[in-house]
């Protein structure tokens, strides 16, 4: 399927999965991963799959209600935008199973399972790479909007960089405007602003605008970081690494557990669980297309840092908790 709905597997069994997104999937690589995971899970357990895309908080609630009426095996909601709805709806429908990916309703019901990620840990590792690789000691992030959640990609990135090189300064710029999540032109000119002021590494957290970031660094000789998935191929030679978040893996695992009858609970995926990471840590880094492959000494430092975080020697501050 192309992300616009439809069934991924023949609805032969009576199992079914409904995934609800908070926004149209469109350019959002994070949501695309969620869809990918849910589709994969549906295939594995032989369930049918449906995607409900929401547009705003009201339509989220509508989609959840519509999903409840359809009585699927599990209803998956992605992101903190479901916190409010999943506070109440699961309690009203105790026989229905729910899964929230990437956040958890405060008042968690027994039939609500949660999966969340420590993307700040991955962003910290990317920051270490940036700190080690920057020559101008100026780095930046181009993010879609200034929301607390987005800071998970900004603050730890800069923290990681300064942890290896004290003099590095980091500047975040936000795309904003009328269509912040899908304005590559504005993202590009934000990136140009950063590179124009000397930044030689820019991390992209601009959703649909990322491609604009990559184009800008390519033109100015700077380097970028991608996000969520391996984006190195979309601008070969210009992307150092990616802040990975294996939403698909986590989603598949969580759905399978529910299908097997293990309900509720919270599962947090950090570096330790392999739920987040950077391509530098992957086995196939050499073929990833990411330029980090050319800097084995940096990869070594990143691995060390990963081990330290897993071991608890380094604690990465979570901007959302700060």
């Amino acid at each position, binding site marked *: 399927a192309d992300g616009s709905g439809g069934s991924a597997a023949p609805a032969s069994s009576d199992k079914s999965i409904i995934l609800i997104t908070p926004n149209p999937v469109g350019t959002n690589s994070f949501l695309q991963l969620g869809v990918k995971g849910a589709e994969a899970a549906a295939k594995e357990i032989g369930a049918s799959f449906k995607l409900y895309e929401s547009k705003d*908080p*009201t339509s989220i609630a509508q989609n959840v209600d519509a999903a409840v009426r359809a009585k699927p095996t599990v209803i998956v909601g992605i992101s*903190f935008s479901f916190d409010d709805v999943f506070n109440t709806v699961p309690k009203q429908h105790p026989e229905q199973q729910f899964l929230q990916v990437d956040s958890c309703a405060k008042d968690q019901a027994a039939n609500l399972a949660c999966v969340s990620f420590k993307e700040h840990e991955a962003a910290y590792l990317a920051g270490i790479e940036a700190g080690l690789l920057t020559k101008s000691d100026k780095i930046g992030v181009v993010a879609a909007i200034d929301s*607390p959640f987005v800071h998970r990609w900004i603050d730890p990135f800069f923290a990681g960089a300064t942890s290896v090189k004290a003099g590095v300064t980091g500047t975040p710029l936000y795309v904003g405007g009328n269509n912040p999540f899908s304005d590559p032109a504005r993202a590009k000119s934000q990136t140009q602003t950063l590179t124009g002021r000397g930044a030689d590494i820019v991390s992209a957290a601009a959703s649909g605008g990322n491609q604009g970031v990559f184009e800008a660094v390519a033109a100015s000789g700077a380097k970028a970081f991608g996000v969520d998935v391996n984006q190195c191929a979309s601008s070969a030679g210009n992307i150092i690494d990616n802040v990975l978040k294996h939403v698909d893996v986590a989603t598949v695992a969580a759905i399978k557990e529910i299908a097997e009858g293990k309900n509720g609970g919270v599962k947090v995926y950090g570096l330790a669980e392999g739920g987040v990471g950077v391509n530098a840590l992957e086995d196939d880094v050499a073929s990833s297309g990411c330029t980090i492959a050319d800097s084995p000494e940096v990869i070594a430092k990143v691995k060390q840092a990963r081990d330290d975080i897993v071991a608890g020697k380094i604690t990465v501050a979570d901007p959302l908790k700060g």
Partner: protein
Amino acid sequence: MTTPAPGTPAPDTTAAPGGEPRDGGPSPGARVLGWARRIVLSTPVLAIGGALVLTTLVMLAVGVDPSLAYPALLRGALADGNLEYTIAAFVPTLGMALAFAIPLRACEFNLGGDGQMAIGGVTAAAIALHLPMVAGVAVVLPLAAAALAGGLVAGLSAPLRTRLGIPAIVTTLLISTPAVAFASYLVRFPLGEQGTGIAQTPPLPDATHLPALAGSSYVTIGLPLIALLTVAWLYADSRTVLGYEIRATGQNRDFARYGGVAVNRLAAVTLAGGGAFAGLVGALIVLGPPYRYVDGALTAPGYTFTAVAAVLLATARPIAVPFAVALLTVLQVGGQGMEREAGVPSQLTQIVQGLIIVIVAVFATVRHLRARRGAGA
């Protein structure tokens, strides 16, 4: 008109209801047929029919089965408990339609509904969060304050229009974005909830939640409130001196001024009145589920623009505004149902809406021109 003898009142042909000839009318059967014909050939029916034909062609071209898609569209808007969502979208859209239509009667274009709505919403949220509330009236105060705030934001455009001659269509548009950004700033920082991913206020106290009707938290007193206000506007527009003066100002400012109408004050009154509706809509959204101001949630559904389209569709007939709003709302909410059920991308509803608007506009003019030509009487 060939001069009738002085003193002979001209026969009042155009005033006959429905334009039926008065003397020796047709048989009841013929009359029913006539009515049926008139309804079938009426602008909205023709336009919607035309748009449906075109949309069906689009569907067929891209391999969507219309016999699945259309029922899904209707069910998505009206059946399976979806009606409450349609109502939940109808209320703010109608409110925003009034926000645009009221100043429009005085020929002022209010395109800044988003900003007025956002400021209204954030005002309501701030008051609900920070003022100790007596149960019962707790919901009234934020509503009133939001209307006031929205009215003030829109009212800013009035002196710019009357003193500096900058058209309201420009200033409302220019003020809107900063107003939305300001509200966004407030919920991100001073009013923001800590420890959450999105910029939003904490949940508002229960006492300030809009009382629900008919057991659905989506159908709130917002519905009767907006319905009442709409009726009040329709009445004021056609049956009060104020409405008359507003219309006269819209038709010819100089004429109204000459007739003793305080045109500048009226411009301010209508703009602020429109803004008040936008502010009220902001409050209705914030005080309804999920009972907080979520950044972007007010503007994301595009109520303002749908409302503008609906008012323009209604082509200067106030009574048609609620119907045009209902039509567009059904299409929008139904479109999501269609996407869920039949897997038809919801962009298709945007296509249908766009087509309907274009076709209605064309039909309306053609009829208008024909009517004018016919009304040489």
